[in-house]
C-alpha cells in the first residue's frame, strides 16, 4: 500500500533532546576510523544520530503507512551552520518536503532541522527515503 498522499508538507513533532557527549562522538568517529581527539568538532555526518531518530518517528507512525522493511535510504545531505560539538543538546524537527509516487514506489524527501537548546539551527539534514509499496 502506498503512503498517504497528504503526507507531503507535514511536520512531525521535535525529537526528544539528545545530549552530545565525548563518548557518543568518539564512538561514532571510531566506528569509521575517523581521526578524533577530545575537543574536536564532531564528524560531519554525526547529526544522522539525531536525524535518524526523526526519520524513525516518521517511518513508525501507523497513520503514514510505511512498512519499515520496505524502506531504502536513497540520498542524504547535511548542510551545517556550524560543526556539532560535545555539550550540544540537539533536537530534530522533520518535515516531509516532497512525495512522489512512481510505479508502486514512494519517493519521500525529508528535511530535518537540527537545533541546539537556544533554538539556533545547527544543521539541516535532508534525506530521501525510497519506499517500495508492494502489493
Amino acid at each position: 500500500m502506498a503512503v498517504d498522499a497528504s503526507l507531503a508538507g507535514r511536520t512531525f513533532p521535535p525529537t526528544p533532546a539528545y545530549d552530545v557527549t565525548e563518548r557518543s562522538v568518539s564512538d561514532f568517529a571510531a566506528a569509521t576510523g575517523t581521526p578524533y581527539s577530545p575537543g574536536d568538532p564532531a564528524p560531519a555526518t554525526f547529526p544522522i544520530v539525531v536525524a535518524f531518530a526523526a526519520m524513525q518517528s516518521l517511518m513508525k507512525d501507523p497513520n503514514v503507512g510505511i512498512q519499515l522493511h520496505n524502506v531504502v535510504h536513497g540520498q542524504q545531505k547535511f548542510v551545517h551552520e556550524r560543526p556539532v560539538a560535545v555539550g550540544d543538546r540537539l533536537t530534530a524537527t522533520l518535515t516531509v518536503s516532497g512525495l512522489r509516487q512512481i510505479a508502486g514506489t514512494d519517493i519521500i524527501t525529508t528535511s530535518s532541522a537540527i537545533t541546539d537548546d537556544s533554538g539556533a539551527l545547527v544543521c539541516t539534514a535532508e534525506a530521501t527515503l525510497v519506499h517500495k509499496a508492494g502489493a
Partner: protein
Amino acid sequence: MPELTPTTYAVTREALVAYAEASGDPNPIHQDPEVARSVGLPDVIAHGMFTLALAARYVDEQLGEPGRIAELGAKFTKPVVVPESGTEVEIEGTWRDERTIALRVTCAGESVLGNPVAVLRA
C-alpha cells in the same frame, strides 16, 4: 589547496556492528548475512551512511583538520557488500573550486555513491 591523494579504506563486519551501535541504526541487513540474503542481497551490506561517513573521514584526513565540511551529500547508488573477510572502499577527491571537493567513491572498481560532494567552510 592541498593535493588530494586517493585512499583505500578497509571495511569489516566488526566496523559495521560498531557503526550500528554508535549511529543507532540496528537494521540487521548490515550485520546478519541470513537476514541480508532473505531480502535478496548477496551478503551483509554497509550502511549507506557508513560509506558517507568514510567520505567525510577522507576529507578530514586530506585537509588535516576536522570541522571544515559545511555541506556533504550523496546518493546511495550501489550497496557496499561486506563478506566475512571484509572489503575495501576507495575514495578519490578532486578540487572543483577552492571550496568544493568532488569525490569518487568505489568498491571493487564500481561507483557506490552518486555525486558525492563536500563543500568547505569559507
